[in-house]
């Protein structure tokens, strides 16, 4: 772990399974011996609003359930515009970002009062600022698996290949079986694995691109 406490924000929109994702991740890291503090915003804000979970991963001690501004180490966003919103408040030069690509449109956008920019534009804007930022099609993959709600678990799987924290499949299995009914275990494990797979695929792609840009000397 590079920082103590290591600060993770999981963000998204009400109904995306943000709270479950943060509890599962927190419990996985407790199994690895960390002391975890989680702060969550839900309630009325769940009704179409932004939902954020703040995780403080520490060797020891209870930390503020709200991360101080500009001090996130990792932002995991279940929705692309929310990644940008959190980046503005909690980002910094060293922050890492992992975001889903599927927008959940605010009603003001649906009503035509406000424009939601193309996701490609959000991605390039974020990557210009945070070069290593990763965007994955978690919801599209979840839809292929039969249920869009699995996108939060796909994001957790992807996170396991994107952070120095020990995010282990065995811990995921142990924790998720406590949180969801038995028959959902297999589906959740497949979603977790799908996330890891997406992350690996993306990695090899970016390496290839890098090699290419070096002028074919290899």
């Amino acid at each position: 772990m590079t920082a103590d406490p290591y600060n993770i924000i999981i963000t998204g929109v009400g109904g995306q399974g943000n709270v479950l994702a943060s509890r599962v991740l927190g419990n996985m890291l407790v199994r690895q011996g960390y002391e975890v503090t989680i702060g969550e915003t839900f309630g009325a804000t769940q009704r179409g609003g932004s939902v954020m979970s703040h995780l403080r991963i520490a060797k020891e001690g209870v930390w503020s359930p709200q991360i101080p501004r500009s001090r996130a180490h990792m932002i995991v966003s279940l929705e692309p515009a929310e990644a940008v919103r959190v980046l503005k408040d909690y980002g910094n030069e060293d922050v890492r970002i992992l975001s889903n690509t599927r927008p959940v449109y605010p009603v003001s956008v649906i009503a035509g009062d406000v424009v939601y920019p193309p996701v490609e534009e959000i991605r390039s804007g974020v990557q210009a600022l945070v070069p290593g930022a990763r965007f994955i099609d978690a919801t599209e993959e979840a839809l292929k698996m039969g249920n869009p709600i699995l996108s939060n678990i796909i994001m957790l799987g992807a996170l396991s290949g994107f952070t120095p924290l020990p995010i282990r499949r065995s811990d995921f299995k142990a924790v998720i079986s406590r949180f969801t009914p038995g028959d959902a275990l297999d589906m959740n494990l497949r979603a977790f694995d799908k996330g890891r797979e997406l992350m690996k695929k993306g990695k090899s792609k970016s390496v290839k691109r890098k090699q290419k840009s070096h002028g074919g000397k290899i």
Partner: protein
Amino acid sequence: MTAGAKKRKEAPRLLMGNEAIARGALEAGIQIASGYPGTPSSEIIENLSRSAAERNIYVEWSTNEKVATEVAAAASFAGLRALCVMKQNGVNVASDFLLHLAHSGTRGGMVLVSCDDPGALSSVNEGDSRPFARILEVPLLEPGDFQEAKDMTKWAFELSEEIRNFVFLRSVTRMSHASGSVIIGDLPAETRRPAFRHKGSLLDPDNGPVISLFPGIPELKHGPQQEKLRRAADIFEKSPFNTYQGPEKPELLIVTSSACSLYSREAVHLLGLKDRVGILKMGTTWPLPPELVKRHLAGTDRILFVEEVMPFLEENVKILAAEAATDLGIKYFYGKKSGHIPSVGELNPDLVLSALRKILNLPSEKDPSDFLKKAESIAASAAPHRELTFCPGCPHRASYWSIHNAIELDGREGFVCGDIGCYTLGFLPCGFGTLKTIHSMGSGTGIAGGFGQIRRFAMNQPILAVCGDSTFFHAAIPALINAVHHRSPITVIVLDNRGTAMTGFQPHPGLAVSAMGEQAVDIDMAEICRALGARVEIRDPFDLEETQRTLNLMMEEAGGAQVLILRQACGLSPEKKGKKLFEVKVDESVCVGENCGCNRLCTRIFRCPGLLWDGQKKTARIDEVICAGCGVCAGICPSGAITKREAQA
């Protein structure tokens, strides 16, 4: 939660503050728990209800908070330990009984938990329940972390039995809805056998009748009550829940409690001030232990109060400082009164940082970095504001659509008095701006009843009120009785979505199930209203046409109070969640888009999150990930371009 408690005693668990409070109550051996749902308190009773069978305890969601405290008090009178839980507003409701209970005192340990919501993240008021402890003259505890949330709850029962009065424990959203490490303890093996002893003399606290006060002789009960409070203060002098971190003689002393102590610690840590600033974290915040506070005041000249909502610690410490001024000398106080800490809203580490910078003349924050400037400029276009809205498939959207249209068609500037629940959002565009007054539980019907009476002075506007099904039982019934009795010409619309939806779908008296999942008597609200003599209609809000027609008829014919029940289960209810009733589609060849006279009625006005406007094709579209399949939008499209087909199971 209870399994393997002994075996894994040493390993800390990640518990939500509310889970920790529930665990503490179980470790204390409670046999009764009662409450009324309200964010951020609801998970405490929910957790206990899940342990009810295993621990052989009785858990109920009461009709309202006052009844909940009465239920818990009865258990205490019979010698059992009892927990009572509510959000801050609930204490307002329960306060009448509590003020009497504080006089009579209790027998078995009784703890009242109030979860406050600084910043009103899930409330329509910003309140602080702590001053109630002063008004009630009972001890107040505030946990500062998750372990304390458990340990303090357990200890609160011991304190309650020691002083023979109930103990008030206050949590906040960032404690109740946050999670952290908790090492759990053992659960008691034995249970108490209840007996209400009432044959002793009137003044016998153990065996006599439990009476709040003898008229005209306050000394007999109010005097001993104040003595109990003094004993609590003595006990608090040595409480391990009051901690101090910092140098012996700090330049600045922070006095704080609850989640604010974590913000204070973080701010001191970030500024590297641990050798200059001390933090006195109070866990026993009323009555303050005077000697302990004075000892800490003696070590410094400057004191900063870090707390949310009311300047409660601030005022009480200032009183102690004034009383001891001859010994302590002049002190400089910073906090809400001085403007260093905001007097409204939630605090966070950054607000404490900026207070510390100002008081200690530290260099102010650097200008925003290039990074932040760029991030802000991206956010300005890429992070559109998310206004609150009803969920896809929510019956309230359909109800408000019909109510709004009926009022417009009626044309007499009718209006709706609102109430507390998800449907409170009806004052926003998602409810077509339909609600025109919003206050406390049940107030919509009460205020509407009052408006109804002033129609006699030639006011012609039709008067309506909405209330939810749980709210109806909680506090709307007395208001409805008042309106019926006084022939107030109003239409009360009960938005019956079959549960206490806002807080996580807890049962209420209208449902045939209890908090423990046992069979309960489902009370028919329509029969109650009919028995009062009100005209009652029941409609399905998803039938837009029939709902609107009924409302227009009722508004025309309102001679006295009448009730329209709009019954359709919440889209998140267990029976509906994740199941689409209809496959909904937009036929792009039929949707005329912007050339239609409707001017995008579905997306611009109806604004269901499950609808999208395709800017390229210039037609509406369904977002298959978001759409809940209620099919209501098919009824609003004037071209018939939105179609619904029963979903395959």
